[in-house]
């Protein structure tokens, strides 16, 4: 186990470096000149050149990358072109808000997806399975932003039950789990959780059906075990698959949050990323993507370790 963990940790290093390089180069390959967004339209060629030098954009790509990585390693992600504030502090503020939404949506997606998947698998081809299937198929086929807009129209505009925008009152005082803040959290949570919940439920259903078809389940019955003990065996066998898909879905959720945060004006990393893109704020874009992708790498690492811990066939390999 320890050996596996160390090996897996070492794997994460080249993956992390590769990811930073891809993040860096993607931003540079993408069309659109950051400088032209920064300077007024009538700026002279000289002003443009000077700005490029100031931001280091005249250097070769690899040099720019090395410089940027070196700074990033020391926590310096540069200065936002748009706001003029350090990217690191902008991102740090946004990360907190995204984490709140991610935890909330992650819990809803995992718990609900887990329960629905188990129930559908245990009662395969019964009415309850068909109902779950209807829910999950809708879940995976409705786009995030469409669901987000629909929720706003129904629950904010028509019914006027829940607020449509923002994170709640007085964002400077910090987030607290009180009703004014929680009410703002509900709609973004639903919109973010829908797809991962559906995917988790579908995968888990397939996994439970698969486990139930295995011979050892007959042995468990032939031992006279109580149904709840048999269920525990089934869940333990489905768990590695469940954890893997949960990890992946939580990762994908970060992608989905860009759209959802934009629709709900939720001041998280997704929202930040979207504004960085629209303002062609290169350092901010890079910094945000870096943090997001590092989070993704970390998530995968955790999932792998937890999975190997729950599956003895990997653990002892």
């Amino acid at each position, binding site marked *: 186990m320890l050996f596996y963990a160390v090996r897996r940790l070492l794997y994460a290093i080249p993956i992390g470096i590769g990811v930073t390089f891809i993040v860096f180069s993607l931003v540079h390959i993408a069309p659109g000149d950051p400088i032209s967004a920064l300077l007024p339209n009538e700026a002279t060629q000289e002003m443009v050149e000077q700005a490029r030098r100031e931001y280091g954009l005249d250097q070769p790509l690899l040099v720019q990358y090395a410089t940027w990585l070196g700074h990033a390693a020391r926590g310096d992600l540069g200065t936002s072109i748009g706001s003029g504030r350090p990217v690191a502090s902008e991102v740090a503020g946004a990360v907190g808000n995204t984490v709140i939404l991610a935890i909330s949506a992650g819990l809803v997606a995992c718990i609900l997806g887990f329960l629905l998947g188990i129930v559908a698998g245990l009662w395969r081809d019964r009415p309850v399975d068909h109902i779950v299937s209807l829910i999950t198929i809708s879940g995976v086929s409705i786009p995030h932003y469409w669901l987000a807009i629909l929720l706003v129209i129904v629950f904010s505009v028509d019914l006027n039950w829940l607020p449509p925008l923002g994170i709640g009152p007085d964002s400077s005082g910090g987030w607290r789990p009180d009703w004014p803040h929680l009410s703002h959290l509900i709609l973004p949570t639903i919109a973010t959780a829908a797809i991962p919940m559906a995917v988790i439920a579908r995968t888990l259903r397939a996994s439970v059906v698969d486990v139930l078809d295995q011979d050892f389940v007959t042995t468990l*019955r032939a031992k006279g*075990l109580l149904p709840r003990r048999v269920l525990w065996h089934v869940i333990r066998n489905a768990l590695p698959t469940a954890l893997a898909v949960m990890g992946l879905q939580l990762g994908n959720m970060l992608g989905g949050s860009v759209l959802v945060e934009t629709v709900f004006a939720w001041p998280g990393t997704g929202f930040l990323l979207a504004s960085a893109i629209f303002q062609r704020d290169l350092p901010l874009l890079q910094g945000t993507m870096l943090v997001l992708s590092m989070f993704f790498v970390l998530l995968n690492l955790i999932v792998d370790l937890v999975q190997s811990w729950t599956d003895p066939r990997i653990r002892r390999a």
Partner: protein
Amino acid sequence: MSDRMAAPILDIASLSVAYRGAAGWTPVVRGIDVRLEAGRTLVLLGESGSGKSVTLRSIVGLLRDEGARVEGEVRVGARNVTTMSDPELRQLRGGRVGFIFQEPMTALDPVFRIGDQIAETIVRHRGTTWKCAMGMAKELFELVQIPSAARRLSAYPNELSGGLRQRAMIAMAMSCEPELLLADEPTTALDATVQIQVLLLLREIQKERGTSMVFVTHDLGVAAEIADDVAVMYAGQIVEHGSADQVLLTPRHPYTQALTRCVVRGSYRDAALGELGGAPPDLGRLPAGCSFAPRCVRRADECLLAAPEPCEVAPSHIVACLRAADMAATPTGEFQES
């Protein structure tokens, strides 16, 4: 059967099992009667698909969960399994009746330690603490001669060899001191040498504890080794039933005769029933008369018309063949290629 026998530990009366197929119900077991006295070993012998495993599973009511249609009656001791409630069945399974499966790799849960899988059975039926159950599991491991028992208890199934896994399976089945042991081809998946060791171990434990056993196999050598009684199954019916000597040494049904003759010609232990000529009938489209008639060298015209009733050719030696009377002691024929 004669009534001088003691109360049977197992009594199966006109048991029929059918599964829903593409075209209606397919009969898989067709009206079988089995009686087993306490302390004895009955071997169910037959080709693949003859209904041996289904018969075995029906004894602990496992067919209920499979959507099978079951008719007839199964009694274990004084208890009627057919009319038991689910909780009663769960008491019976693992407690009074132990079950050993063919493939110990797939029959054990891969993500649970072996020791835990045995302990959970003990806790369930004997209501002991987990710790106490683990202690008993260790003793059981010593009983089935697994070396370094303590270490093996915390192993996962994939970390043990096939032979050790099957020993663990035997330990699990014996953990609550059942009065009846059901073994579905417990040695088929093992290497030849390991096969004999496990077989001898099983017989030793069973004799020592006085446990009754139903043992399914398609290997005549194994049957000869372990059987007190033998029942030969063909296409879901028992065609011959009697003591091991009666059935294996003086077989009266042409099917059994062909099987034993096959063994005489070939090597005893390796003779598998499937190597014989012809193929068993399609259970969905059975012939009108005797189901074995199409492959039978001793077939008479009337065999194609009516199915034979079982009749007692010698004390407790039962044969279902119209021509059973003519079959005695005549040299056995071979299968017709169909």
